[in-house]
């Protein structure tokens, strides 16, 4: 038999076990499954060995286009990953453990998650963080629900410059609940802060913003946060964690709940997942946080140790009254995030942000110099910015993609008034040569 099934028992052992159970055959164990209930089909191919499998997988992987240079982001970013992240997160004791429900034999995971929570607090400038959510989009939806719960209100104001996928996820999550969602359309790639301010009222649970926003623009939401608080509402900020190496943190702006996607912290693109969502908040809201939280405590001898805490918020205790239904989270991806942050360290992480910023500014200038291209607005950006091109952005993007370069996300699909625009992403991995080649090819395509 050349198929792997990882079932170790030998025929002799199976016989012994059946005898010990007191049945004649394995089929007898399936007696509760009456004929009416039996599978009517199970039409799958035969199996294979691991060697054949790898060949099959390799040929699938090879049928993806190789070497496309991505100047796109939209939530996932092509960042460098120090190799230690793979080596350490790949330790079997991390990857093949379950949720650390038994703390004495799970301190590795628990301490790592405590350190992860700390890193998220320090990056965002917030007081408490959980042990991860699914991804950035669902984390934003969870934050919205958390705000509804905290305030007891049912109205949300959302900046239209928040990532369209995230806004769609919020709408999907809330579609069956009695919540009013007010979306404030951005103007030419800038959030319309005045209208956001104006939309706030005493029924509003929260105002939801993103920094840098979907257009890459940076904002200081300090004023909006104050306005929200004046209305008894919360400010929820979605952030791109790499930007926090240099950009004002949401904590400094007065945000109440902060979320984001952790892919850019040491998780591979992997066609969109797994990454992790993070959520952080002011300590006073901790009992309303979704998901698992690790807390510090002591053992019987007074030694420090870590446990899952405040579990009374969670579904396995509170069932339908839980703060969220989440159970499995993205623990290993969060661990990767922590290792990523620890290996770059305080200075290295700041340098990383700076590199992204410098490269994007260079690209901005290089592209702005192309005839027919202009940068959409003069606002400060981090590592993404919007260019308008003379022509249909989607067509140009499609054409240049065939040429091996993903020039940016055409905006027309999400903002019909911007159908000659592209959001261009430039991470630290893009070289000067790649950027200049991009400018040249774009010039040729216009």
């Amino acid at each position, binding site marked *: 038999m050349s*198929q*792997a099934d990882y079932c*170790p*028992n030998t025929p002799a052992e199976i016989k012994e*076990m*059946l005898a*010990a159970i*007191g049945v004649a055959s394995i089929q007898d164990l399936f007696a509760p*499954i009456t004929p009416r209930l*039996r599978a*009517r089909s*199970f039409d*799958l*191919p035969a*199996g294979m060995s*691991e060697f054949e*499998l790898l060949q099959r*997988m390799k040929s699938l992987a090879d049928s*993806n286009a190789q070497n*496309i240079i991505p100047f796109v982001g939209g939530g996932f970013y092509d960042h460098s990953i120090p190799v*230690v992240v793979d080596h*350490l997160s790949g*330790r*079997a*004791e*991390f990857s*093949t453990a379950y949720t*650390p429900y*038994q703390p004495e*034999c*799970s301190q590795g995971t628990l301490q790592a998650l405590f*350190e992860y929570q700390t890193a998220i607090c320090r990056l965002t400038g917030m007081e408490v963080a959980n*042990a991860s959510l699914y991804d950035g989009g*669902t984390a934003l939806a969870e934050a919205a629900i958390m705000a509804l719960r905290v305030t007891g209100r049912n109205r949300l104001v959302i900046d239209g410059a928040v990532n369209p996928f995230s806004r769609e996820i919020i*709408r999907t999550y809330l579609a069956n*609940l009695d919540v009013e969602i007010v979306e404030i359309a951005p103007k030419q790639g800038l959030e319309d802060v005045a209208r956001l301010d104006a939309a706030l009222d005493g029924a509003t649970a929260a105002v939801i913003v993103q920094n840098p926003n979907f257009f890459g623009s940076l904002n*200081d939401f300090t004023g909006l946060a104050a306005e929200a608080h004046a209305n008894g509402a919360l400010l929820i900020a979605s952030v791109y964690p790499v930007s*926090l190496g240099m950009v004002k943190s949401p904590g400094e702006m007065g945000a109440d709940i902060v979320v984001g996607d952790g892919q850019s912290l040491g998780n591979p693109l992997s*066609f969109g*997942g797994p990454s992790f969502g993070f959520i952080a908040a002011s300590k006073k809201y901790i009992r309303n946080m979704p998901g698992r939280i690790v807390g510090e*405590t002591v053992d019987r001898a007074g030694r420090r140790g870590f*446990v899952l805490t405040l579990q009374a918020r969670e*579904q396995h205790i509170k069932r*339908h009254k839980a703060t*969220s*239904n989440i*159970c*499995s989270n*993205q*623990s290993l991806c969060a661990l990767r995030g922590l290792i990523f*942050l*620890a*290996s*770059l*360290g305080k200075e290295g992480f700041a340098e990383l942000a700076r*590199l992204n*910023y410098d490269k994007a500014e260079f690209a901005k200038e290089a592209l702005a110099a192309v005839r027919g291209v202009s940068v959409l607005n003069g606002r400060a950006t981090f590592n993404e910015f919007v260019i308008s091109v003379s022509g249909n952005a989607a067509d140009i993007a499609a054409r240049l993609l065939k040429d091996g370069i993903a020039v940016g*996300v*055409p905006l027309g699909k999400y903002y019909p008034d911007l159908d000659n625009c592209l959001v261009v992403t430039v991470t630290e991995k893009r070289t*000067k040569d790649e950027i200049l080649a991009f400018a040249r090819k774009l010039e040729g395509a216009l």
Partner: protein
Amino acid sequence: MKLIYEKSTPGRRGVRLPASDVPAAGALPANLRRAAAAELPEVSELDVVRHFTNLSRLNFSVDTNFYPLGSCTMKYNAKVLENAAALFATSHPMVALLPGGEASAQGSLNLLFELEQSLAEITGMDEVTTQPLAGAHGEMTGIMLIAAYHRARGNKKKYVVVPDSSHGTNPASAAMVGYEIITIPSAPYGDMDIDLFRQAMTDEVAAVMMTCPNTVGLFNPHIAEICDIAHEHDALMYYDGANLNAILGKVRPGDVGFDVIHVNLHKTFGTPHGGGGPGAGPVGVKKALIPFLPVPRLVKGNDGSIRIDQDNPRSIGRTANFFGNFGVMAKAFAYITMLGREGLIRVSEQAVLNANYIMSQLKSHYDLPYDQTCMHECVFSASRQLKNGVHAIDIAKYLIDRGYHPPTVYFPLIVKEAIMIEPTETESKETMDEFIAVMKEAAEMAEKDPAALLAAPVTMPISRLDETKAAREQNVCCGI
């Protein structure tokens, strides 16, 4: 062990980035800059390596210990699946979503499409979405689909019915979608009381959520009848696929009458749990629900290539950023491909055999609330041991000292002092025999030396932890 922050020294550097090949740009305006760099650790690469290597060594894991954690299906996950998934690490999802971008990602898209088809065949469903990011996320997605279905039909629905043995995520997920919960008690035989169920069913019930085998490890013989009753009220049947490991090739929920299912790839389909995640919770549906599936959807063209459909006005919308936890999907795809039809059937047969074997060997020493053939797991009660002041948790902690990860304890809630054992198919009789001997030893100690069990564990770097203090102090972020 010290925290990584406690190992920090000002100015110490770890991994280096390449020097910049572009000029430094002007500074950000002051109001957009952070006041001070985040206090991340300042440690060397060696510090990082030693810290996390040593941290890892504080964990039990499948690769180091037998881990019969009921309801979690902690099987051995073949290492080759890691290698397989790594082949797709550099593929950017946004590129595929660009105009004309599908052509660049046919490998990844084919993998997803084939996985959807395999899961549909395995579960007896008509279509599958791979977007949900875990089991609970799949549940929520499934209930949203059900809500969309009822909305489209003009049904007025208010309730979701669950048995009291259900996993907490079931009622929690339904509540996230705005339903009220009706909980049906279990009958003495361990399954949902069918009479109480029948009484509870009204036209206001949107869905009934079941797992089968249920969390007590029993296969409900009334399951088809339950489906029929639900359908009479135009309530849809939701199948929690967390226990699918018991029935591969034996039962297909779709054939039985279920309308929606989620599958925990991280339980049944060979992807590791990562200390809590990531998982993946693909959702399968019957025809009537297909129009509501989340976007993006994959569509196979006549030329055999896969297209991405991002726009479907009837869809419930987007439930996650891209195509779900693709890396997890790649492992599950590889697992199904490698095991094939016969291998998957053998998985369930051996999982059920192993669970029944443990049940048969331990019922002399532990109370067995439901003494009948179990499926992939068996649930004991420590109520006999409780007479000597020994709780399920004490037995659990003693097992740690003996090198075993404890079974699930205190779940399902309907069994007092529950000890829920799921050996999985990847463990040998030899391993189970050793475990059985230690479990018996624990039962004997409960008689003779209960204090020793209450003191356990004594072989770990720490003893039992003060959970009350943790909850009171809420110290969830390092202050230094």
